């Protein structure tokens, strides 16, 4: 075991507040950063409860930290602490259990990251750092470092990346961190509408411009006046509209459909696509001059499989957020389920991860989320990726199969949670012979909840 001096030397090398806690969440050691933040010396607070020293908003019983100790997996959460300067400091707390008890019984390492810089960039204290962009991985850190630069300019920005990587989230975060944040942020999907409709949608029209144009209509560019317009799936923009967009980028003015009067706009343009625009240019499907004008600043959102270590962070984040949203007590992920999730390739990236966690939180009845609460694609991938893990999974799932017949009724190809829930309710009612009390008990709900959901889905 390393000496106390060596351990402290290591702790002091970390550029964040850091503490080692014992199994009762009492301070074993703190580094210099945390000493400066709290105003206490490490020697002074040895053996004192972490909540007394750190004075976080979580209070004494923080389920995340307890969860980290019980599950053996790192947990993180955002909150604040009251520093010695009597100011609330926004913090990200990450608790990592130590595999072997360290110095003087230390079982948990707690890292406190000051989020003030991120929040001041975002200008919106309550919205969080860079408005929902999370990531410790090298690739995400590079984007977060570039974030203030992207926010403080009016230059066109092109965000590329696979579907579900967070292009929209980044665009919106940049808008909210920019001087344009008091004006609207308008998002238009260029692939969602046919050419004629898209032109009217983007640039507006005047009365009588075409059949059915009964009144003047402002386009999205006018609605975004002073703010930001985010053109997503820009690679799907038809060629004739590419010319018009080029004009807007050059002159900051355009003619609405059927109008003879030019409209001037002051709008920042951010575009996003999952396609390779350079390839489209070569194929003659995208104008080269437009590509050059849009590609002034460029950000490539990394796929989740290339974001080392971010899966756990995002799981904790979504677990807490979704549990709060649906008024459930935040559960935690079992080691096996976490292992399956960490080995999954997430072809749908962060969006898919969010949906998986939402599914798991809804399917589990509170407490621990196990492999049986994960959707079939994750389990299937787990089986094919790690043959050695498959028997263990089978053993894990076998006892669950009998007492949870309702789970077998879940449609594998269900498209939404409401659909799954509807089918679950029907299956429970059928199994209970129409007795709502029994059905509610089988579903793990109260009678009132079942009654409310029956009404909500029109099943009564």
């Amino acid at each position, binding site marked *: 075991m390393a000496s106390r001096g060596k351990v402290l030397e290591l702790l002091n090398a970390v550029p964040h507040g850091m503490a080692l806690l014992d199994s009762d969440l009492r301070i074993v050691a703190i580094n210099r950063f945390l000493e400066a933040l709290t*105003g*206490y010396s490490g020697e*002074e*607070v040895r053996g*004192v409860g972490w*909540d*007394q*020293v750190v*004075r976080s*908003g979580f*209070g*004494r019983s923080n389920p995340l930290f307890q969860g980290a100790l019980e599950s053996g997996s790192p947990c993180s959460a955002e909150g604040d602490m*009251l*520093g*010695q*300067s*009597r*100011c*609330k400091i926004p913090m990200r707390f990450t608790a990592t259990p130590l595999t072997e008890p360290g110095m003087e019984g230390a079982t948990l390492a707690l890292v406190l990251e000051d989020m003030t810089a991120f929040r001041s960039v975002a200008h919106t204290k309550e919205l969080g750092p860079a408005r929902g962009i999370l990531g410790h991985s090298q690739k995400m850190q590079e984007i977060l470092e570039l974030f203030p630069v992207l926010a403080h300019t009016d230059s066109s920005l092109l965000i590329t990346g696979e579907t579900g990587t967070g292009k929209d989230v980044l665009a919106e975060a940049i808008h909210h961190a920019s001087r344009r944040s008091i004006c609207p942020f308008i998002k238009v999907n260029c692939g969602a509408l046919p050419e004629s409709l898209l032109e009217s949608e983007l640039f507006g029209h005047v009365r009588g411009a075409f059949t059915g144009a009964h009144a003047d209509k402002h386009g999205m560019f006018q609605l975004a006046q002073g703010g930001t317009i985010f053109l997503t799936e820009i690679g799907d923009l038809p060629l004739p509209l590419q010319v018009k967009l080029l004009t807007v980028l050059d002159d900051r003015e355009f003619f609405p459909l059927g109008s003879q009067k030019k409209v001037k706009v002051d709008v920042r343009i951010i575009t996003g696509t999952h396609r390779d625009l350079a390839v489209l240019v070569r194929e003659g499907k995208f104008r080269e001059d437009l590509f050059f004008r849009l590609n002034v600043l460029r950000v490539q959102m990394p796929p989740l499989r290339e974001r080392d270590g971010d899966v756990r962070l995002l799981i904790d984040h979504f677990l807490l957020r979704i549990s709060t949203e649906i008024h459930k007590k935040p559960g935690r992920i079992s080691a096996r389920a976490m292992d399956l999730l960490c080995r999954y390739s997430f072809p749908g990236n962060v969006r898919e991860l969010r949906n998986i966690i939402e599914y798991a939180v809804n399917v589990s009845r509170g407490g621990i989320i196990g492999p049986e609460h994960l959707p079939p694609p994750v389990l299937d991938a787990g089986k094919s990726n790690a043959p050695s893990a498959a028997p263990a999974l089978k053993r894990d799932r076998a006892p669950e199969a009998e007492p949870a017949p309702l789970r077998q009724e879940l449609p594998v190809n269900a498209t939404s949670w409401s659909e799954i829930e509807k089918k679950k309710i029907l299956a429970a009612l059928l199994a209970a012979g129409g007795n709502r009390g029994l059905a509610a008990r089988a579903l793990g709900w109260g009678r009132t909840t079942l009654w409310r959901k029956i009404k909500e889905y029109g099943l009564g």
Partner: protein
Amino acid sequence: MKILVTLQNDDIAPRFDLATEVLIVRVGQGGVEGEPRTVLLPGPSSDELCSLVIKEDVSLVICGGIEETHYQYLGWKKIQVIDRVIGAAEKAVRLVLAGRLRSGAVLRPEKEGGGA
């Protein structure tokens, strides 16, 4: 004179804004007068707690962390605040009576008066 201590069980609550219980002690020439009173608050709120301090005519507040705004407000109302104190509430009151409690003190149960 009255002393108010923010409570979390028997200890001083780490944060003034999150305290839901307070101890009010009346102090005279000979020390503590009467039985100390514990007041349960309807919920955590710095503003409500400041109102209670004023209403109860408290002269000294002992607490854990407190935000600058409320610290200044109480100071402006001529109420002394000893903040960032860690330890048992009862011991903090004893040290105040002995004139030995300071801001940022860590009161340890095993050392009588240590750290203050």
